[in-house]
């Protein structure tokens, strides 16, 4: 075993990328040397690199430096991190952080992510916390590697460490730079054998300290993402591209109605499909398996299945959803969060404003439907997947199939965008189940109709807000009440709640779900916040499953709250930027200098936009049928603050809204890669713009009727703003602080945008849109109701 590195090509490619760059190839060869000179078990990631051998797939030990970093004989390094990268540059950012601490050039490194037997379990991705939380152990272990190498270098060169300097993986005497030794000379192809400490993986550390910010050289550079060339030249091997010997293709056959139960399958109906292998069903889960992909698609369409309609309607039609939610008995509620004396403040208020808002179900509707390839060879189970939480998939599948964890592994590879969808990785469980049933590798992909109807969805909300203003237009009281339809919110790769488990009849205790209060920074002395969760009549085997969709509650909650702040500004006849600045100035909350940083981003957004101070709506005349206006929205997510300004053009004849310009000022502390951050902020805004203008899951009382890009429209090229400005702000009172921390950026710009668009529509037209999406029919109806539409 120790000398073999005869990886099957598919696994080699899977682990190392088929866009094998020179450095990746050399990594493989170098790792081969490692395997030859040491034993597989002794080498970090060795068991996975020698993947030809069957498991057991032991957990990489996060308390061993060798788990995280390998120095190769050619003086390059490979980093291993337990994160995944949905295309937001996480991998590039981790390499930058680790290069800085290790003192090695960026292009001399590679990174392996999210493969459960190769990389330490950092949980995969989610919550915008990759860099904010998981970057720290990665930096500390790289610093510890550098410290260890300096110790070795001092011994080799016969001088104290203080007399040494490191440049790009080479240690030299300060006094005589010709006397030098490389990292590879010291340890290339060998183990560090350095134990780390830490009560959990997030706390992993060695003895060394990370560098102060002013000594970072690679962090802060706008390096280009390493994953992009393979994505544009067709060379990248995606998870969907892996092919294995004996592999077959599967497609699911879903119940046509929510909650329908399987009566009978007529297998003879697909007997004439070439390549047909089997129908596999258990409970209400049904799949067909064929030799070729197009055969499986045909068989799934052709298979005759009798289903029985459930006795009671699973849910109200989408047109009735909000009324249903308002009336439904809560499944849970939170204790009211009360500050000051809101009742007295409302009584004393000069004016009281009230408004209700609604947000419908919105889906992930990933561009590529759910996918997994499961290989049951050697009594193990290997799953090739783009699961953002690969470790959770491994644990979940092991439990689901009743296999020891050590016999299951997940190989993380690139796939369509995730944003929480693959945290409940239905396809991974299904492929593994089918592969075990058949004893052959099974490649499963969902179809478009299936993905759009049955993917996990962000919870819908209804909100009621009340605000009291004093005679000076100051906000003295606020009431916020939110109801989310989120009962039975899906867990992360929970083997009892993924769709296949539900269809097989699992009925665990439902997760109670969440209804969130807004993250309020504003200084409002008297307030009451109440939230409650409701559920649908049918909570199992329904396509209306709530799960985590990108900052799972933030976009909905911030839409309502920042729209209402705008309504209060209108009532106070105040400029909406100044109104927010005044509310922030009055705040006493200043964790991580959030108040100072919030003031800075609001000011930076206004300055970049060229905001002229005035109240809304905009006075003056339309240019033909087009009214234009601007709106601002501000929020924070965890420790990241963001202010967004949208400029819209509203066609009063058609109701069509074009967001012509977007500005986002964003402070997430230390910036690891400004180019990647800029891109993430931009796409986060545009994804929210799609939710603002287009996205809504519609259904009748039996099934989802938004099933493809015709019935479920998404943002398109023509909706793209003409201009987007992203301003990276460092609003820390001591911007050059040596311990400036990086905060998450995955969702900060996504959260405030819908409100900015609604506020801009109001500024342009005087009409308040209190329910996204702002499709033209709905905008036109609102304009007409206000006597402003000009259409005949």
């Amino acid at each position, binding site marked *: 075993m120790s000398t073999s590195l005869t990886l099957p090509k598919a696994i080699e490619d899977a682990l190392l990328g088929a866009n094998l760059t020179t450095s990746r190839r050399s990594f493989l060869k170098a790792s081969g040397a490692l395997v030859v000179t040491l034993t597989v078990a002794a080498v970090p990631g060795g068991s996975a690199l020698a993947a030809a051998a069957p498991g057991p797939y032991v957990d990489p030990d996060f308390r061993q430096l060798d788990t995280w970093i390998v120095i190769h004989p050619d003086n390059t390094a490979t980093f291993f991190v337990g994160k995944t990268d949905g295309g937001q540059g996480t991998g590039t950012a981790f390499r930058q952080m680790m290069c800085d601490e290790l003192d090695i050039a960026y292009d001399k490194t590679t990174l392996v992510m999210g493969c459960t037997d190769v990389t330490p379990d950092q949980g995969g991705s989610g919550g915008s916390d990759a860099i904010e939380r998981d970057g720290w152990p990665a930096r500390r272990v790289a610093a510890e590697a550098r410290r260890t190498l300096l110790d070795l270098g001092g011994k080799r060169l016969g001088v104290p460490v203080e007399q040494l300097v490191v440049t790009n993986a080479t240690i030299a005497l300060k006094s005589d730079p010709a006397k030098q030794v490389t990292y590879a000379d010291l340890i290339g192809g060998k183990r560090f054998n350095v134990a780390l400490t830490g009560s959990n993986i997030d706390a992993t550390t060695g003895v060394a300290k990370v560098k102060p910010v002013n000594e970072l050289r690679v962090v802060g550079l*706008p390096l280009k993402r390493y994953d992009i060339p393979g*994505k544009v030249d067709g060379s990248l091997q995606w998870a969907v591209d892996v092919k294995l010997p004996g592999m077959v293709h599967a497609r699911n056959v879903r119940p046509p109605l929510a909650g329908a139960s399987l009566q009978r399958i007529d297998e003879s109906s697909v007997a004439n499909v070439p390549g047909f292998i089997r129908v596999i069903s258990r409970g209400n889960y049904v799949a067909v398996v064929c030799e070729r992909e197009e055969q499986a*698609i045909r068989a799934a369409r052709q298979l005759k299945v009798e289903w029985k309609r459930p006795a009671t309607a699973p849910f109200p039609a989408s047109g009735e959803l909000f009324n249903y939610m308002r009336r439904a008995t809560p499944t849970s509620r939170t204790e009211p969060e009360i500050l000051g004396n809101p009742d007295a403040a409302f009584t004393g208020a000069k004016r009281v404003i009230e408004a209700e808002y609604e947000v419908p179900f919105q889906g992930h509707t990933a561009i590529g439907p759910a996918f997994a390839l499961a290989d049951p060879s050697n009594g193990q189970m290997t799953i090739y997947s783009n699961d953002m939480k690969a470790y959770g998939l491994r644990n979940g599948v092991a439990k689901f199939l009743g296999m020891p964890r050590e016999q299951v592994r997940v190989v993380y590879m*690139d796939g369509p*965008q995730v944003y929480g969808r693959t945290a409940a990785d239905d396809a991974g469980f299904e492929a593994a189940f089918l592969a075990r049933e058949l004893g052959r590798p099974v490649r499963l992909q969902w179809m478009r109709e299936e993905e759009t109807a049955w993917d996990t969805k962000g919870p819908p909300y209804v909100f009621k807000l009340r605000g009291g203003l004093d005679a000076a237009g100051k906000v003295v009281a606020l009431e916020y009440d939110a109801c989310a339809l989120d009962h039975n919110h899906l867990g992360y790769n929970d083997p009892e709640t993924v769709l296949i488990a539900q269809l097989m009849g699992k009925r665990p205790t439902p997760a109670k779900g969440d209804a969130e209060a807004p993250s309020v920074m504003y200084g409002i002395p008297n307030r009451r916040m109440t939230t409650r969760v409701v559920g649908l009549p049918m909570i199992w085997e329904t396509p209306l499953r709530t799960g985590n969709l990108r900052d799972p509650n933030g976009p909905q909650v911030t839409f309502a709250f920042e729209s209402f702040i705008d309504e209060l500004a209108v009532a106070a006849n105040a400029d909406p930027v100044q109104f927010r600045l005044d509310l922030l100035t009055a705040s006493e909350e200043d964790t991580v200098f959030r108040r100072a940083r919030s003031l800075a981003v609001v000011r930076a957004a206004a300055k970049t936009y060229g905001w002229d101070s005035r109240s809304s709506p905009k006075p003056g005349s339309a240019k033909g049928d087009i009214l234009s206006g601007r709106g601002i929205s501000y929020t924070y997510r965890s420790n990241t603050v963001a202010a967004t300004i949208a400029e819209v053009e509203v066609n009063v004849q058609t109701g069509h809204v074009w967001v012509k310009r977007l500005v986002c000022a964003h402070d997430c502390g230390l910036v690891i890669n400004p180019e990647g951050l800029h891109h993430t902020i*931009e796409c986060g805004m545009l994804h929210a713009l799609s939710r603002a203008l287009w996205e809504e899951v519609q259904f009748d009382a039996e099934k989802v009727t938004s099933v493809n*890009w015709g019935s479920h429209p998404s943002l*398109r*090229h023509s909706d793209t703003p003409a201009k987007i400005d992203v301003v990276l702000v460092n609003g820390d009172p001591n911007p050059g602080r040596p311990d400036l921390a990086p905060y998450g950026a995955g969702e900060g710009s996504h959260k405030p945008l819908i409100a900015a668009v609604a506020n801009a529509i109001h500024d342009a037209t005087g009409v308040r849109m209190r329910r996204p999406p702002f499709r033209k029919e709905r905008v036109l109806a609102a304009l007409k109701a206000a006597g402003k539409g000009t259409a005949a």
Partner: protein
Amino acid sequence: MSIVKLLVNGATHEVDVDPSTPLLYVLRNDLDLRGPHFGCGLGQCGVCSVIIDGNSVRSCLLPVSAVKGAITTLEGLSKDGKLHPLQQAWIDEQAPQCGYCQNGQIMTAKALLDRNPNPTDAEIRTAMEGILCRCMTYYRIQAAIKRVAHGTATAAVEAAQ
């Protein structure tokens, strides 16, 4: 099953498949190409696009037996190891996020520029309208097309640098 002859990226291939098989599955599963992806199978999203005789075509709907012309896929755009200017522009603009749709974006942009080397912003939007991106990289994609068409860098990248 029957033998179908295809000219893909300059090479001739013979495959033994059901002639009604959509081209996409033949390209992906028989010819091992990784550019065109399955997105909807309905001709709605465009991520499966290939170029046939100068036109961007959705391979998820086209029966392989109906293909008459020479097929170019994403893999066939580079020449002698040199990326096509659009591919280079995509890298320069750092256009992709997840990248799953970018095949359709690039192939459709190529068909556009081949017939109209100097499109207006409106023409770019119209030509690209049918290719969806759920990471919403549209702004960068349009910038990359303009970079090739007009030889211009864009504010997005410059601002970050």
